[in-house]
C-alpha cells in the first residue's frame, strides 16, 4: 500500500509500536519509587457504614497509607461532581449505594501487598433494602437512595420531554392503525480489554501534578481536577497514553483516579492504581438500561404518521451520564430516526437505583443507540401488524433526498442524506429477494431463518457550543499546526485516540490540505501540556470536530504560506492559486508557471527573506473549531440468522452493512471501525447483559458471566458504502466510530424475531440467548431467568 498525499487507504502509523509490544499503556508506566493502590469495595448494594477500621491495614509492613472517606472529607474531596452535575462519593462516608462502590484505598509497596491489606480493613455495614428494579424506584415507600441530597424524598432524577404531545395525540386519535410495544434495552458495559487505571505523581517541590490515565477527554479531566481539588490548572498535566479501547467507558473521572492523586499527595511518591476486571464491570460506566414503550400510528397502507415514546431510564446510584448538559436523555429524541414522520413526542423519566452510575458509555452517540433500536423495532412491529415487508415499509417512509436539510419534529436538523439509495444497495448486496424466497422454503420445512433490517441515522460531532457543553465546558476543539523550516509538520490536537488511528487520519487531513505526505506530519495528542484545549474523543466527535479543526488550521497555514509566497514570487497574494499536483502543494502565479512549493515556502518563511509589512513570517497557526451543527451519518444493515428451534441457538449467518459517513479519510480505518461495531451489535443482541439479583448482587462481574462475542460468534462482515458528504463540515466527513454499534443491534434482533414469526413472536428483549429464544418459541418471551435487570 503506498502512501496517498491526503485521503485514501494507508497503513497506520501507530501499528509499528503495537505489533512489537511497544505500546505505552497506563499500566506500562513505571516510575522510580512508585507505590501501588487498591480499592476496597462494598459487598452490599445499599447499606449504612457504621465504622471503618483501618488499624490492621495500616500496620501491614508494606502499607504506606490507607485513605477512607473520612480522610477525604478532611480535604473536602469525599464527594465529586459527575459529568451530569450530580455528585458522586469518591469514598463512601455515610452509605454505600451500589455493590462495588469505593469505600477505602490502600497504598502499598507492591500490587499484591495492596490487595492483601484490603482484607485487613474492617467495615461495619448495616444493610438496607435496595432499589434494583427501576420500575419500582418511584413506588410509594421505596427506599430513598440519595438521602445525602437535602430535602429529597424519592428516587426521581428528572422528567423530561421533547416533541409535541398534542400533535402526536391528535394523529393517534384518528389513526387507521396503531401499534404499541414495550421493550428493554438492557444494561450493558463496553468492557474495553484494558481496564481503567491511573498513575499519579505529585511533585511537592514544584507543586506539579502529573496524571497518566487512559482518559478519552484529557483536557476536561485537567479542568475538573483543578475545579474540584482546588489545584492550579497550570500545575496539572494529564497524559492520556495509549488506550486499550475506550468506547465511552473512559470519559468520566472515577474515584480510583482521585484516590491515586490523593495517595501521591499524601505519600509524596508516585502511585499507580489499576482496577481488575470485576471492578471494571461492577463500578465503571455502564450503558443503556432504558425501559421503553413505543407507539406508532400509521395508515393502513403503511404510511407512518406519528410516534410516541415513554422511557424509564435507570441511571444507577449517581447521575453520572457523560453527555451535553442540556440533554438529560442524551440525544434520545432523534427517535424519529430516518423516517418522514409528522408528529412525535417522547417523555423520559430518570431514576436512581442501587446500581453503578454511568449511562451513555458504549459507543452510543449519546443514547442514539436506544433511539435507533426503538424506532427500528417499532417499524418491524408495524410491519408484522400490517403484514407488510419490512424493507418495503422502510422504503416507503424513509426521508427523501429532496427533504434535506431536514428538521425533525423534535428539532434536529439533519444535514444531508440519500437514504433509499443506501437501503437499496444493502438489499442488492444481500440479495434480498432471494433471501426471502429461501426463507419461505425453509419455513415450509420448519427451519426458522430470519432476515433483519435496520436503518439508522446518527447525530454526531457534539457540538455547537451554544447548545452543547459538559459541566459548562463548551464542546469546541482547538488545533495547532507547526510547519518546520524543512516543510515537515507537527499537528497538536485535543482529542485522544483509543484505537481510531488519529495519528494516521489526522496526518492525512493535514496532508490533503497542504499537499505534503502524511509521513511528514507528526500528530501529538493525549498530553494536556502539549496540546490545545478540547473536549476529547467520544460520541464519534473526533473527525467532525477535531478533524474539522485540523482542516481549518491547515487552511490557515496555507493562507500564511500565500503571503510568504507572494513575497517570494513578487506577485500580489490575490494573483496566487493553490494547487496540489504530483509533487505536492504549491502556490502559483495565475497564468504563469511561476510557483513555489509548500516546502520552499516553509524555508523562506523562516529565512531572511524580506516580508511585506504585516506579514509575520513562519507558518504556524492555531484555531478553534466550533461546529455549526452536528453531522448525521446513516446506514442500512441487513442481518441473516438461522435459529435452531430445539435449542434456541442463533447463528448469525450473514451481515451486510452499508454505511454513509460522508467523505472517508482512510477507508481502511472506517471499515475497521464498522467491523468492531458490528461485533458489538451481535454481542448486545445475543450475549451481553449486566444482570442483578434482588439484593443487588452483580451477576455479570466477570467475562465468564458477561459474555462477549469471540471470532466464532461473528460472521465475516460484508461492507458497502455510499457517500453523501456533510455540507457544513470542511472536508465533508461525518464521523463513523459508533455507527455500527448504534445500528446493528436492531438488525440482529429484527432478524431473530423475523425467524420466530411463525411461532407468533412479535418481540423479545435482548440478549437473545438460547434460553431466551427457546422461551419465546414456547410462547413466553418475557425474560424469567433474571429476576430483574
Amino acid at each position, binding site marked *: *500500500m503506498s502512501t496517498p498525499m491526503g485521503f485514501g487507504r494507508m*497503513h*497506520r502509523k*501507530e*501499528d509499528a*509500536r*503495537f*505489533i*512489537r*509490544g*511497544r*505500546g*505505552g*499503556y497506563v*499500566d*506500562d508506566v*513505571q516510575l522510580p519509587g512508585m507505590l501501588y493502590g487498591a480499592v476496597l469495595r462494598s459487598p452490599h448494594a445499599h447499606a449504612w457504614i457504621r465504622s471503618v477500621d483501618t488499624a490492621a491495614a495500616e500496620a501491614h509492613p508494606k502499607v504506606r497509607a490507607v485513605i477512607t472517606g473520612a480522610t477525604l472529607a478532611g480535604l473536602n474531596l469525599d464527594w465529586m461532581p459527575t459529568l451530569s452535575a450530580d455528585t458522586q462519593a469518591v469514598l463512601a462516608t455515610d452509605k454505600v449505594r451500589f455493590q462495588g462502590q469505593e469505600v477505602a484505598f490502600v497504598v502499598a509497596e507492591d*500490587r*499484591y501487598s495492596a490487595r492483601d491489606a484490603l482484607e485487613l480493613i474492617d467495615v461495619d455495614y448495616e444493610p438496607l433494602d435496595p432499589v434494583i428494579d427501576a420500575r419500582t424506584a418511584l413506588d410509594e415507600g421505596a427506599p430513598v437512595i440519595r438521602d445525602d441530597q437535602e430535602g429529597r424524598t424519592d428516587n426521581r432524577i428528572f422528567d423530561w420531554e421533547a416533541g409535541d404531545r398534542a400533535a402526536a395525540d391528535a394523529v393517534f386519535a384518528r389513526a387507521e392503525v396503531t401499534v404499541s410495544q414495550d421493550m428493554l434495552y438492557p444494561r450493558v458495559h*463496553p*468492557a*474495553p*480489554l*484494558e*481496564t481503567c487505571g491511573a498513575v499519579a505523581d505529585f511533585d511537592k517541590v514544584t507543586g506539579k501534578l502529573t496524571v497518566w490515565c487512559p482518559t478519552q477527554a484529557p483536557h476536561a479531566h485537567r479542568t475538573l481536577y483543578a475545579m474540584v481539588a482546588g489545584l492550579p490548572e497550570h500545575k496539572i498535566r494529564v497524559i492520556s497514553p*495509549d*488506550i*486499550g*479501547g*475506550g*468506547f465511552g467507558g473512559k470519559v468520566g473521572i472515577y474515584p480510583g483516579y482521585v484516590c491515586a492523586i490523593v495517595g501521591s499527595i499524601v505519600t509524596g511518591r508516585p502511585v499507580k492504581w489499576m482496577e*481488575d*476486571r*470485576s471492578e471494571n464491570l461492577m463500578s465503571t460506566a455502564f450503558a443503556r438500561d432504558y425501559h421503553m414503550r413505543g407507539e406508532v400510528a400509521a395508515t393502513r397502507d403503511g404510511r407512518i404518521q406519528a410516534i410516541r415514546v415513554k422511557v424509564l431510564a435507570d441511571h444507577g446510584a449517581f447521575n453520572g451520564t457523560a453527555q451535553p448538559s442540556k440533554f438529560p436523555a442524551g440525544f434520545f429524541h432523534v427517535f424519529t430516526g430516518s423516517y418522514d414522520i409528522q408528529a412525535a413526542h417522547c417523555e423520559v423519566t430518570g431514576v436512581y437505583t442501587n446500581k453503578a452510575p454511568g449511562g451513555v458509555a458504549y459507543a452510543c452517540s449519546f443514547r442514539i443507540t436506544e433511539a435507533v433500536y426503538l424506532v427500528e423495532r417499532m417499524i418491524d412491529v408495524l410491519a408484522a401488524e400490517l403484514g407488510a415487508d419490512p424493507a418495503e415499509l422502510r422504503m416507503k417512509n424513509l426521508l427523501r433526498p429532496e427533504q434535506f436539510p431536514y428538521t425533525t419534529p423534535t428539532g434536529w436538523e439533519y444535514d444531508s442524506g440519500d437514504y433509499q439509495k443506501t437501503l437499496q444497495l444493502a438489499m442488492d448486496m444481500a440479495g434480498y429477494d432471494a433471501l426471502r424466497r429461501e426463507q419461505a422454503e425453509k419455513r415450509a420445512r420448519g427451519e426458522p431463518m430470519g432476515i433483519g433490517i435496520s436503518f439508522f441515522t446518527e447525530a454526531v460531532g457534539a457540538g455547537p457550543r451554544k447548545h452543547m457543553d459538559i459541566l459548562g465546558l463548551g464542546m469546541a476543539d482547538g488545533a495547532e499546526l507547526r510547519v518546520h523550516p524543512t516543510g515537515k509538520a507537527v499537528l497538536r490536537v485535543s482529542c485522544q485516540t*483509543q*484505537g*481510531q*488511528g488519529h495519528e494516521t487520519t489526522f496526518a492525512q487531513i493535514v496532508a490533503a490540505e497542504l499537499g505534503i505526505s502524511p509521513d511528514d506530519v507528526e500528530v501529538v495528542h493525549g498530553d494536556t501540556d502539549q496540546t490545545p484545549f478540547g473536549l476529547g474523543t467520544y460520541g464519534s466527535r473526533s473527525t467532525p470536530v477535531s478533524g474539522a479543526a485540523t482542516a481549518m488550521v491547515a487552511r490557515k497555514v496555507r493562507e500564511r504560506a500565500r503571503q510568504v509566497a507572494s513575497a517570494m514570487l513578487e506577485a500580489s497574494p490575490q494573483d496566487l492559486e493553490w494547487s496540489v499536483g504530483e509533487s505536492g502543494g504549491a502556490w502559483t502565479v495565475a497564468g504563469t508557471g511561476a510557483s513555489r512549493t509548500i516546502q520552499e515556502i516553509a524555508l523562506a518563511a523562516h529565512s531572511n527573506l524580506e516580508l511585506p509589512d504585516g506579514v509575520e513570517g513562519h507558518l504556524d497557526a492555531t484555531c478553534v473549531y466550533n461546529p455549526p451543527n452536528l453531522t448525521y451519518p446513516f446506514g442500512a444493515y441487513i442481518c441473516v440468522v438461522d435459529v435452531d428451534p430445539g435449542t434456541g441457538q442463533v447463528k448469525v449467518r450473514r451481515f451486510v452493512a452499508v454505511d454513509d459517513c460522508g467523505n472517508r479519510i482512510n477507508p*481502511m*480505518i472506517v*471499515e*475497521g*471501525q*464498522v*467491523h*468492531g*461495531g*458490528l*461485533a*458489538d451489535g451481535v454481542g448486545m443482541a445475543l450475549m451481553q447483559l449486566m444482570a442483578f439479583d434482588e439484593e443487588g448482587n452483580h451477576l455479570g462481574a*466477570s*467475562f*465468564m458471566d458477561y459474555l*462477549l462475542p*469471540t*471470532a*466464532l460468534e*461473528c460472521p*465475516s*462482515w460484508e461492507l458497502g458504502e455510499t457517500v453523501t458528504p456533510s455540507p457544513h463540515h470542511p472536508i465533508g466527513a461525518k464521523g463513523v466510530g459508533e455507527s455500527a454499534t448504534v445500528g446493528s443491534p436492531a438488525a440482529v434482533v429484527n432478524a431473530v424475531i423475523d425467524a420466530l414469526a411463525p411461532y407468533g413472536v412479535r418481540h423479545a428483549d435482548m440478549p437473545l440467548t438460547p434460553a431466551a429464544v427457546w422461551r419465546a418459541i414456547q410462547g413466553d418471551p418475557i425474560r424469567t431467568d433474571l429476576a430483574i435487570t
Partner: protein
Amino acid sequence: MRISVTVNGQTHVRDVEPRLLLVHFLRDELGLTGTHWGCDTSNCGVCVVQLDGVPVKSCTVLAVMADGHEVTTVEGLEKDGELDPVQQGFVQCHGLQCGFCTPGMLMTARWLLDRNPDPDEGEIREAISGQLCRCTGYENIVRSVRWAAENQEAKA
C-alpha cells in the same frame, strides 16, 4: 523462590513470591510490557505468551511454573530486525486498532502457522476463539493471519 526463566532467548534468574503470576513477572520484573493483562478469569487472552512453544495465558501460569522453561513474548517475534510475517500481516490487513489484544493474537497466530501453515478461515477463528478483541470484529485479524500464511517468507 529462586527461579530461572529463559525469555526470548535470554535467561533471567530472580527471587519471586510463589504466588507471582507469570504475566506480572514478565511485565513488572522484566519490564516486558508487550504482554498485557485484561481479566481475572482467563477469558480475554491479552496475556498469551508461548511457553516452550505452546500458547498459554500468562495470567494463569505462576512464574515459578516457568522455572527452567522457555517463554517467548511478542518482543521476541522480531528476529534480527526482521518482523515476523504475522506482525507484517497485522499491519497489512489492519488487524489491530487499540493494539491491546494484538500481542496475544500474534503469539497464537505464530503458533497456528507453525503447526498449520495454510489454515482456512474457520481454523483461524477456532485458534483465536479463546481470545477477545473489542475493536476489530475479528474480520481483519483473520485476514492478517491469512496474509501471513500466504507470505511466510516476507521480509520487513
